[in-house]
């Protein structure tokens, strides 16, 4: 009788352990700094996926760099062959984000051969961390068939990353999802600082300064996983970078928006400006290069 009930009891213990582990994760996530409340009457605020912060797509900075007239520069990318160096899930996830940003940049400049190499590197890292379905042979074929149409390529890459993000969140791997986002953000800021070092352009400098809030959001996003190996070191480095941004001035002026109901569009008319000194810019460039090179090295 006891032998017959053993699998049942063992199953119960395993499920209990899984749930207990899940509760612990939730508890860990809940330790991230509380969000400011919009309305004191709102008694029940929920964090989306236990992480309330969104990070702008690295592709947006790549678009700005291209629009600003910078030519394609392969030297600023992480070498496509480096993927074999990354031996932990932590490094693989961060570099998946970095390669994703690289792939976006390459696609924008219609660099066919490089795009295929980088997509292959993305595919390998994605497979290693359990998301091979999002970067499979079908995507590779569709990608090759759309070479030259960078709008389609960017959509494909972004959709694959969105589905990966959903997969990680579904499977209680918010920590991995956060690393991919952090990797993409680091690479996009690195692009901007490298482009700016070649030729100082007002719009690119502005985009660098605008990362003041994003770096704070990244730190808050990661703080839920501070106890995990490697995460505290990354948070420390990003905090050091954030301290430089603290002295960058961001001035915002609210202007009432106007809405075109027929076209379902609202014009956000508010204005903002940033003030950043050449010293702050250099400090940010040096720090982001050090962080990025440690991750890719």
């Amino acid at each position, binding site marked *: 009788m006891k032998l017959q*009930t053993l699998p*049942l009891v063992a199953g*119960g213990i395993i*499920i209990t352990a899984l749930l207990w582990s899940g509760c612990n994760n939730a508890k860990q996530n809940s330790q991230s700094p509380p969000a400011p409340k919009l309305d004191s009457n709102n008694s029940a605020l929920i964090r989306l996926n236990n992480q309330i912060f969104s990070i702008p797509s690295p592709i947006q900075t790549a678009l700005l760099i291209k629009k600003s007239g910078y030519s394609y520069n392969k030297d600023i990318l992480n070498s496509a062959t480096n993927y074999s160096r990354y031996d932990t899930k932590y490094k693989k996830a961060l570099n998946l984000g970095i390669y994703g940003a690289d792939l976006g940049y390459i696609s924008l400049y219609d660099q066919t051969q490089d795009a295929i190499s980088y997509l292959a590197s993305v595919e390998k890292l994605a497979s290693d961390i359990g998301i091979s379905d999002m970067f499979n042979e079908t995507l590779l074929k569709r990608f090759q068939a759309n070479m030259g149409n960078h709008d389609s390529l960017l959509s494909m890459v972004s959709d694959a990353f969105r589905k990966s993000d959903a997969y990680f*969140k579904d499977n209680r791997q918010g920590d991995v999802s956060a690393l991919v986002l952090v990797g993409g953000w680091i690479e996009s800021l690195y692009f901007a600082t490298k482009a700016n070092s070649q030729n100082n352009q007002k719009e690119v400098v502005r985009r660098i300064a605008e990362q003041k809030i994003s770096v704070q959001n990244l730190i808050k996003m990661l703080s839920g996983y501070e106890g995990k190996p490697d995460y505290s070191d990354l948070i420390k480095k990003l905090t050091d970078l954030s301290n430089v941004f603290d002295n960058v001035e961001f001035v915002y002026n609210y202007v009432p928006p106007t809405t075109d109901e027929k076209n379902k569009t609202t*014009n956000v008319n508010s204005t*903002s400006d940033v003030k950043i000194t050449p010293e702050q810019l250099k400090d940010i460039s040096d720090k982001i290069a050090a962080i990025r090179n440690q991750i890719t090295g």
Partner: protein
Amino acid sequence: MIMKKFAPSFIALCFGVSIAFSSSAQCDSIANTCAKRNMDPSFISDGQQYRALLVNSDETAEFHTTFYGGSIYRIAACSGMTDGNLVFTVFDSQHNVLFSNSSYQNAPYWDFKVKSTVDCIIDAQLNPTTNSGSGCAVILIGFKQQ
């Protein structure tokens, strides 16, 4: 004897696990439908999928994001498989309301032409007139250059 003692807990645990998996599948399905119906292909996804299980229409999900100047953004907001189930409001960092779909029949998507970079907060709640219980709230963000 042991079986009798553990059976209720075991069943409860299995039930809990199945609810967790079912909620996840429900959110996935809503997100995929939402992307197909409300995210025009001219918009590039920001690479993230935001969702929350809201217990009732009194609960609010909120998240912080940045809209860069010179871009057009689309916010698609869904809960369930039909439109109009999610009410969302966009605030700036000073808590001024920039938009609320509650003024436009709870439209499932809206576009934002952004002049200068602005840090935003988006609130989402289940529509109390169409949701009597809990539901999965999904928000997707896409962008394109002006």
